[in-house]
Structures are given as C-alpha cells and as structure tokens.
C-alpha cells in the first residue's frame, strides 16, 4: 500500500525547486520562496551548494527556524564563508561566479521576462504596487541560469508583463546580448505549482517540460 501525503501548491513548488539545485554550484538566492527552496535543497540534496545573498552573505548554511520575510538575519547568514556587502555580492555575480539565480515573480511572459513591481494601471498610478526589483534585476542579469518560482495562475502567465523588472530573453533570440547584458545568460527553468518549464534554444520561448502527476498538459499550458 502507498501512503498518501497531502501537500499545498506552494509546498510542491518548493520541493520542485529544491530538486533543481545542482551540488557544487553557486546559487544567487532571491527574497522569499527561493530562500526556502535553497534551505530545503541544501538540507536534502546539495550539501556543497554555495548560496549567495545580495546583503553580503557568501556561502551561508542557513539554520531553521527561518523567520518568514526576513533577509539578512543571523539565520540565513549563519556559517558563511565570508561576510561582505551588497556591492561585493553583485561583483561575484557580475564577474560570472554565480551559476544559478533563483527568483520569485508576480508575472512572467513567454520570454521569461519577470514583473515584480506592479499589476494594472501605469507605473505612476498602478492598480497594485509590489516590492519591485530588490536585487532581482541584478540576479536575472548576471547569473548564468535563472530559475523562476511562480504560482501557477493564468493571470501570472501573460503575453506581455505590466513592467519588465528583471530581464528574461527580452524580445527573443540575441536581445539580451544586444542590450548589453552578459552573453550566455538567461532564464533556465520556471517552476510552478503544476509543472516545470524550460526555454527553447532557438526561439527562447517558454516550453513545458513536465507536469504534476495526475494533471494532463492541457490543464497546465
């Protein structure tokens, strides 16, 4: 007999994200769910992953309890290799030392462009205002492969984001390089509560890689 375990959408996303971490690699971890993914991943699968946080913690081994919403507290600064500041943290990513970046998002478009700034209305008079980039723009610009963790809701997958906070492939193949962003970088995976997406090498558009068991692709795309 098999044992049934219930899980929430968020828990599923976190578990999926944690499985994407590659041991012995460097991860630039964004605020929120990515922090939880990184902690879970390091504890379950990838002890030698080097986490990096924009507030200057290089290679911490975060401890629980992790206080929701905090960043830079002793828990996720614990046992770092090095404590620095933000300009140094982004130097590591800008110079190419960060293999992966992991970010949450409000909206995402087919090219993996992320909005975390506002929804609806205009920049000056938005319907709803959110946190904005934080360091997400730098993470998405500098890291070799960016993993985006986002709830699977139709309104979050849009043809065009209301505000392009952090760059995906912009308008398509070659657009990042043309804009001056570091060559060979860009979105790698999109982890949702229902499935896993990648990006087509040719078109740079999002493609479905896997769906949550029990769902059929039609319910995901």
């Amino acid at each position, binding site marked *: 007999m098999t044992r049934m375990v219930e899980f929430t959408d968020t828990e599923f996303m976190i578990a999926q994200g944690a499985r994407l971490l590659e041991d012995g690699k460097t991860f630039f971890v964004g605020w929120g769910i990515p922090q939880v993914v990184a902690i879970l991943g390091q504890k379950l699968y990838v002890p030698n992953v080097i986490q990096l946080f924009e507030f200057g913690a290089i290679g911490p081994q975060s401890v629980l309890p992790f206080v929701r919403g*905090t960043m*830079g507290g*002793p828990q996720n600064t614990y046992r770092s290799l090095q*404590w620095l500041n933000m300009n140094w943290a982004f130097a590591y990513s800008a110079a190419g030392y960060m293999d992966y970046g992991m970010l949450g998002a409000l909206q995402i478009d087919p090219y993996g462009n992320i909005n975390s700034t506002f929804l609806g209305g205009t920049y000056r008079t*938005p319907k709803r205002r959110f*946190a904005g*980039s934080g360091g997400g*723009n730098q993470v998405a610009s500098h890291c070799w492969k960016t993993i985006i963790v986002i709830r699977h809701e139709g309104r979050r997958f849009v043809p065009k984001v209301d505000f392009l906070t952090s760059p995906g492939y912009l308008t398509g193949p070659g657009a*990042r390089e043309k804009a001056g*962003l570091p060559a060979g970088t860009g979105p790698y995976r999109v982890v949702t509560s229902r499935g896993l997406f990648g990006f087509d090498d040719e078109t740079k558009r999002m493609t479905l890689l896997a769906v949550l068991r029990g769902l059929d692709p039609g319910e995901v795309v």
Partner: protein
Amino acid sequence: MKIRKEGEIEYRFEHPDDFRNFVRDKRSRKPEPKLRSAKEAVSRFVSDGDYLVYDFSSLTRGPQSLIREVIRQRRKDLWIGAEFTLHESALLTGAGCVTRIDVGFLGYGGYIGQAVCEGKVRVYDWTNGGLALRMLAGARGVPFLPTRDLLGSDNMAVSAAKVIEDPYTGLPLAAVPALNPDVAFLHVHQADIFGDARIFGTNLFALEAAMASHRVIVSAEEIVDPEEFRKDPMRTTIPYFLVDAVVHAPFGAYPGAMPARYEIDLPHIDILNGIQTEEQMQKYLQETVYSVADHEEFLDKRVGAAKMRELRGKATIIEGYR
C-alpha cells in the same frame, strides 16, 4: 541645486565638486565628543526636504529608533533612498514625512502599496544593485559608475540610469549617477564618543553611505572606549571623521533584530504587516511614537524589560558577530 528633472523623472544628483566642497568646509576631522540624544541629533542634522538613506532594514539592524525620532519631530518632504525599505517607508509615509522613495525593495503590507497607488508618495525604481552602485560612486567622488545590469529592463525607463558605450569594447553599459545623500542613519553594534563605529555581520553599503553623505548619524547598541578601535583597526566599519553624531540606542533596531544581540519581535512585526488603513496607521504611530517622549520611554512603557529579556535570550546565534 541637488534635484534634477528629466521629463517625468526626478533624481537626486550633486556635482562631485559641490560635494567635495562640502566635505572640505563642513566636515570636521577633529576627534570631538559627538554623543547626542536622538532628539538633538535629528533636530540638528535632519531638515525638511532632506534626502535620507539608512543601512539595512526594519527587520535587521535598521536604525528604527532614529526613524521613530524623525516621525516624532514630524519632518516633511523627505526623500528616502533604501535598498530594503520595509516598514520604514510605510511609517514615514503614514506620518507624512516622506514624499519620494528610491528603491530598492519596497515593502511590506498593504499600506505603503496603497499609498503609492494613490500617489501619496512617488517611487523611483533603481533596483538594489543600482542604489548600492550609486552610493559607491558618491563615495568614490565620481559622477557615475557603469554596470552590466538594468539594461533592457523598465527600471532604465523610470530611473535616470543611462545607456553609455564602453570605450574599450563598444558594449552598451548602464550608467548610474552618484548619490550623495543629505544624511545617513547607521545603527551599529559598537561606537565610541567620537564616532568610530563597528558593525558585526554583513552590511548593505555602510561605508559607502558614510563617505557619500553630507551628514552621518550613528546609533549604537553600545558605547566603547576609543582605544578599542586603534587596537583592532580591521574591525572598524566607519572611522570617526565620517560621523557627525553618535546616539546611544540600546534596542535601537527594535522591533527588528540586532544580530547576536536580540531577535526580531515577530508579534510586533505582524502588527506592522497588518496595517492597511489610515486609521490603523495613525493608531500605531500614536501608540509607538507620538505618545512617548523618546526611545528610552518607548522601551520602558511600550516594550518592557520582560520582552527585551525574552528577545535577548532568543538571539542564540553569536558565532562570528564580534
């Protein structure tokens, strides 16, 4: 003139020679006692219309007692630049102190988001990396620094960052203008009466902000002997000649955490996160700021010895914070 306009966009910018002149003429290099009450320090060094920056956040090592003092003194038309402006921006907006915010990361709770939507406060999105780099430019005395981010994003369009061409490769680069704030708040673990200061753990842009700002107010959990700094120069975060006032502020980061000193007060943070309406905001400000004379009375009447003992006891991660 320290405010520039480019169409819709306003940004703080000072010619590096103007900032240098201020540093030459108005900043003392003499080791003078600078211990002040928060009231004196804020009334003397923070004026209406000032551009204010601070290091870290309302959750971690933020200068919360100084921000409450700014609210208590009802400063007006402040412009804040903050990588992480969490509850600070909401409280300062709710108190009518702030009209413009450069971010960074804008949070939390419904109140500040609503205020932005209603146009009560204008937000300019520079991103965290952009603000940190602007501060570094201000500290290095150069009018701009180049970077390989911001490019291709809408943050370029809503900030005064510009695309320039690299003279060596022809690559497009983003240029961000130097930032030289009127005043910087830094809450630290230890300071002496002259202003030498130590932060334990990481910081966002503490030294950059201290060098790039016209005035620097340090609030410290602990006041130590100046000799301590000369005995251990590797641990000095800020030397005294960058500092204008030192405020002794135990629990100065409350309700946030001070690494290795006390933990965050989560129930209090939940109250802050819950603030949605003007009524809730004014009630909170009345209780925690207006109705107490100063930080000492706040700790005494609104926090209490038992709570402080509890939070100190919860700060069990000490390793490395020295």
